[in-house]
């Protein structure tokens, strides 16, 4: 649990983060969104004290984060940034091993961890471990960046626009990977982005920042239904609302009993993607299958239309 208590950061006369308080529940994904200069990155960087606050405090699992030296705090908190920030002079394996090495783990434990993480991110340890970052594609570098952040098994992972430099196809894959990883480790993730699509896709809760203040901190559905200010509404985009609503839920939740013709949709697919599949196939209904391939029922245009409507 991260408790942010009336935190403020000023540089000279400019207030970058203005008296922000929020509580981040453990094992959730919280996405901080906002325009550039809204203070979202600064807010995140105060959690691991890359930026020291002017006033206020931050508690991590009840302990103030100022209780131990900054570098020790940061070794316990994962940190991944846009453009991955890998060390170009160290191999992939050495990059991932950085924090465990700083913590003085035994060599065998480090090697096992590097292997485990590379495998988890679908990179063959024997092939990729000895390579240098510049020999990898952008998507692979990004995965190694996240793997390095997770190497010391942190409870908290901070991510600053981690997928900003990726092309749309690889970005979608990286987001799926992140959701799977979060489920796997139960990590508390705080992610900063300016991409609303990404926020709605990933977040358990979204914090919208504007001019250093949090204007709304709520679950995605809540934010869609009751945007706190005009700014939030603009950020969501009025025309996008029904689709954002659909993108939050999975097909599994929208499955109805009955049969349907056509290519089956996986239950884990978002309702938004199911809608597009229905429209594209020109059908009123499509069958839904579970992860193991069993038929669960069907998803219908009418059912999705009801779900896309403003909740009463």
């Amino acid at each position, binding site marked *: 649990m991260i408790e942010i208590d009336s935190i403020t950061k000023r540089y000279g006369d400019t207030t970058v983060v203005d008296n922000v308080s929020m509580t981040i529940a453990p094992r959730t994904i919280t996405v901080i969104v906002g325009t550039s200069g809204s203070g979202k990155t600064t807010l995140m960087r105060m959690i691991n004290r890359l930026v020291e606050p002017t006033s206020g405090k931050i508690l991590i699992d009840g302990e103030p984060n100022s209780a131990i030296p900054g570098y020790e705090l940061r070794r316990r908190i994962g940190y991944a*940034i846009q453009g991955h920030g890998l*060390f170009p002079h160290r191999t992939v394996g050495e990059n991932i091993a950085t924090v465990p090495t700083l913590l003085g783990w035994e060599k065998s434990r480090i090697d096992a961890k590097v292997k485990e993480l590379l495998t988890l991110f679908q990179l063959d340890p024997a092939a990729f471990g000895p390579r240098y970052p510049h020999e990898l594609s952008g998507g692979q570098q990004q995965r190694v960046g996240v793997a390095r952040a997770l190497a010391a098994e942190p409870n908290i992972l901070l991510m600053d626009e981690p997928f900003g430099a990726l092309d749309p196809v690889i970005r979608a894959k990286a987001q799926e990977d992140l959701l799977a990883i979060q489920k796997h480790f139960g990590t508390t993730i705080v992610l900063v982005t300016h991409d609303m699509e990404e926020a709605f896709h990933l977040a358990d809760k979204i914090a919208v920042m504007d001019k250093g203040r949090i204007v709304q901190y709520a679950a995605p559905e809540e934010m869609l239904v009751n945007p706190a200010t005009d700014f939030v509404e603009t950020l969501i985009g009025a025309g996008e609302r029904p689709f954002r609503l659909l993108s939050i839920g999975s097909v599994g939740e929208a499955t109805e009993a009955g049969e349907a013709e056509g290519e089956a949709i996986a239950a884990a697919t978002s309702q938004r993607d199911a809608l597009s599949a229905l429209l594209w196939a020109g059908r009123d209904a499509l069958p839904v299958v579970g992860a193991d391939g069993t038929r669960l029922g069907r998803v219908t245009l009418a059912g999705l239309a009801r779900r896309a409507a403003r909740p009463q």
Partner: protein
Amino acid sequence: MRLKIDKLGVVIAALLAYGAFLAPFAQFRANRIVPGEARSILEALPAGLGAALLAFVMISIILIVLKTPTIVRLVLGLVALLVLAVLIGLSAGHLTPPENTYARVSPASGFWLLSFAFALVTADALARLKLSPFARVALLAAVAGAIAALLMSGAWDGLSILKEYGSRAETFWLEASRHVVLALGSLAAATLVGLPLGILCHRVEALRAGVLNVLNIIQTIPSIALFGLLIAPLGWIALHVPGAQAHGIRGIGAAPAFVALFLYSLLPVVANTVVGLAGVPRDANDAARGIGMTDRQRLFGVELPLAFPVILTGIRIVLVQNIGLATIAALIGGGGFGVFVFQGIGQTAMDLVLLGAVPTVALAFAAAIVLDAATELSSNKPGRAA
């Protein structure tokens, strides 16, 4: 099949033709300071050998003008340089009258032109072969070995420059060691001071402009003027600091030369350290802090290894510059190869000037090759630099 012409080869061939047929190969002087008389290849070498050399040059011209394989050109260049080196030694024996110890024989413009042309062929071939750093250093060692063998075998003993050496063998090695100590010592001192200063300038932005400007101004002071400026403070130190004089610190001599070289060396070391550190990717630095490296770990684990090739380039500049500049130290009694250069100028004895100049150039050249190879190695294999 049409034969293709190598463009650079045409220029080299013209140099070869002029050097072999029109310019004098060797110069004969009755003693070390009278003007010399020119001797052509046929005059300078025993009958058969002179004709053989001319034939060899003509064959070389054909091979060089045509587009021959690079490896052929490399072998030709190296063999030709070796042949010239041996023949100039022979010409000395041939031209010097028996029992005459005053007569001097030295290479003349023809020899230098031929050597230059064949060196160009060799250098061109080497550049085209793109040798690995190790191969380049090995080649340098082989060439140095060949020159050492020629010197020891006595093949060049008849040449004027070695006659000058013969009468000063002891001083030569003394001055050589002084030269190396001056050049390397001031480099070591400059690295010890310049590296931390560069790191400080990188971290503290307020210092950067000031420090670099001061070092820039020092670079613009002419060396003689700097020696002059150092006489007063060093003289004062010698008088007032106990033990200073015992350590050789005086207004003139090796101390001001060392200090001057050290001051000149600081700018390249500091500037390249600052540039190298500034070139470290921002992301890597941010990530290093973000995952919990202390400032020290970040400096030694990330910043310095990544900046290392640029810093090494600075050290290369300093070393080559210092080997050349150390010659000036002789003006204020600091010793080094400059001693022979300035004595030679004073006595209008060109051979003596060469005795100081040739080893200086050779040292600088060797230092450049070794450090270039080191720089390339450190930037090619970034993982090994740490």
